């Protein structure tokens, strides 16, 4: 009884912080999503409008377009990060000259604030001035212009996200690979399994919990990307990189459309939960049943 009370006492600061900075804002946003509120409208009052905001979302071409590009961004970014991150993790499992230096450099993007990452990439990709367009032009005669080409802007935002977040995947997978027991691998080699078979039937199943945890984290992060993209392209050209986070930012802050912006936020949260749930039921639940 005593230890139970002590446990709650120790947890109390965390719970209080979570309540005020997590639970209260969530319910406030949920409440706002059922209201019309623009403080710079002729009527600046908060007016209950039922499910109108959510109804409007279904027919909002801007929101639907934003949802589409966001899903494409998330798919390309997360899958690429997983593949590159795993390859790098495997490389770091081996010894090679300069490994420590390379691993440190590789991890540096992780400690950078997204706004700085966006600024750096903006400097590197400014048409005709940035180092990347200049080199692409002089080496291949390729004109990279993220201000006019939707495909180029989308691709650069994906590459920027990969550059920023792959180290996280690498570090997580290194931790998972290091902790694997050597017995199954030795037995597989004795049984004559090749590298591909070892990867699919031993390595991957054993590191799957770490892979899934990484995918969940990256999925949630990628779905709410704002600062990097806002700094790099502003959501342009046109709406080519107006991902959901950027869309919400523009609705909520400059446009002060707080009610509608809140409704979009709730829907994005719902979509994130659904995406994670789908991953869970398709990949983890079957494994648990087998166990």
């Amino acid at each position: 009884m005593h230890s139970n009370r002590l446990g709650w006492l120790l947890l109390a600061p965390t719970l209080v912080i979570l309540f005020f900075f997590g639970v209260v804002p969530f319910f406030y946003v949920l409440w706002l999503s059922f209201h019309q509120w623009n403080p710079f409208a002729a009527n600046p009052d908060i007016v209950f409008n039922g499910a109108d905001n959510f109804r409007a979302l279904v027919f909002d071409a801007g929101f639907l377009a934003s949802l589409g590009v966001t899903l494409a961004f998330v798919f390309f970014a997360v899958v690429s990060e997983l593949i590159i991150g795993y390859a790098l993790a495997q490389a770091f499992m081996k010894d090679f000259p300069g490994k420590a230096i390379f691993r440190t450099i590789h991890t540096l993007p992780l400690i950078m604030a997204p706004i700085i990452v966006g600024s750096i990439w903006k400097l590197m990709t400014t048409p005709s001035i940035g180092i990347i367009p200049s080199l692409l032009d002089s080496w291949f005669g390729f004109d990279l212009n993220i201000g006019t080409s939707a495909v180029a802007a989308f691709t650069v935002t994906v590459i920027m996200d990969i550059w920023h977040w792959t180290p996280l995947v690498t570090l997580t997978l290194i931790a998972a690979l290091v902790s694997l027991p050597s017995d199954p691998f030795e037995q597989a080699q004795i049984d004559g399994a090749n590298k591909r078979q070892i990867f699919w039937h031993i390595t991957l199943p054993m590191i799957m919990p770490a892979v899934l945890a990484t995918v969940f984290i990256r999925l949630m992060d990628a779905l709410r990307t704002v600062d990097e993209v806002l700094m790099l392209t502003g959501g342009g050209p046109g709406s080519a990189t107006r991902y959901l986070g950027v869309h919400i930012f523009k609705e909520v802050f400059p446009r002060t459309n707080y009610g509608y912006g809140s409704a979009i936020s709730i829907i994005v949260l719902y979509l994130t939960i659904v995406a994670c749930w789908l991953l869970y039921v398709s990949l983890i639940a079957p494994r648990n049943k087998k166990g």
Partner: protein
Amino acid sequence: MKLMHKLGASAIILSLMTGSAFAQDLQIDNPEWWQQAGQQFEGVTLQGVTESTPPSNFVADVLAPKFEELTGISVQVETTSWDQMYDKAIKDMEAGTGIYDMIYIEQDIIYAYLARNFLVDITAALNEKGDLKAPTYSEDNFTSFADNFRGEGGNLFGVPMEAFIKIYLYRTDLFEDADIQAAFKEKTGKDLKPATNHEDYAEIAQFFTEYGTENDMDLWGTTAQAHTGHPASWYEYFESVAPTYGVYNWGIDADNNYAATVESGGTMNSDEAKAAMKWWLSMRDIAPPESVQSTWTEVATTFAAGRAAQGLVYGENAAWIASDESKSKVVGNVGVALPPMEEGVMQAAESGEGYIGYYDGGAFGLPVTSKNKDASLLFLQFMALPEVQEEWAVAAPRITLTSTYDAAKVKELDDELGGYYTMLRDDGKLFKGAPPYPFHAQLREATAPIFYSILTGEIGPDEGLDQMAQKTEEELTALGYRQ
């Protein structure tokens, strides 16, 4: 490492010394009055938030310390990005937290703030508290730009601290080069001189872009503030280009139920607006490639880097472009002129019916939520004293008091800037700030996606402006301004 520490410390000391050097240059009349006025506010610290610009930095680095030295009132001025500044100020006033005692008010947001009763009536407050009125402060000292910060009764709700016009800058070294002049004459049959109309401007722009290509130079004929995802492009079109085609106030007729479409009586999708858009897009196409990623800052940088022969540039950048060799490659080679315009626009501007370009600037206001209103009133007056204006105008090209034009250092700088201050004084009346709408950002963001689609070519300019005008009326109806 020690060297880095020393360098860092030296930089900090140098910056502090620069600020204090300026502060020492300021000679304030009646210092005893300020000392006495400040006595009742012992221990008070004023908090301000503003955009990080040269004029604001002068407030933070020079005026604030000088004010504290005189009155004992500490002033902390937070200089941050444009977006952050608005975010912080609006949230503070909306929530009534009273963190800020002074906020920067850009000319185009004052109407939204007045509509929400966010600001203290400075005229009324000073009339009410005569003991706080500084001897050399007077509203009569301000230029006409101060009218942008007056309420319906003519009272002042913000003390102007920066004011500049968006001007036509051109490279004098190129325009006055005999060989280039001859080549231009041969190609066009005209003399090379700053353009007064769009046709001439386009001809010059085309000539220099071709000249740059032919001579393997990083030179283009014009700048363009044409970012495909940032509101800077929206502003360049509506506030700098459309007015020169006779399309004013963003093409919205506030007296006609906020009509925007031609059918309702607006001009946002008028023939003039469409011609302006096509002309501007054609200029964007022959501007430096970075123009599609350029906001107001990058346009100035492009010009300062010597990559454009001419362009429309915000006047706040004129001083450093023309005189700061550490940042600009075109020092001593900058000329200023009025923007090119269609026939009839100048007459409309002179008669007060129209305008030829954008008069931008800002003021410091006092939020009604401030917990130190009286002390803030003192600092706001301090910012508007004639004694501090000369050094301020030299540090940042801004003039808000009529007497500043006659200051010796300002006249000297005017020569270096190719007559920018003279133009501001004599022709400032031809320019105008943003229209007095309380829904600036709301309307801009509602129509911006369509605007960006025009820039990327997804929608044609005619169709795009039709859609924007339609969207404007829908948005203003939803906001409750259009009935």
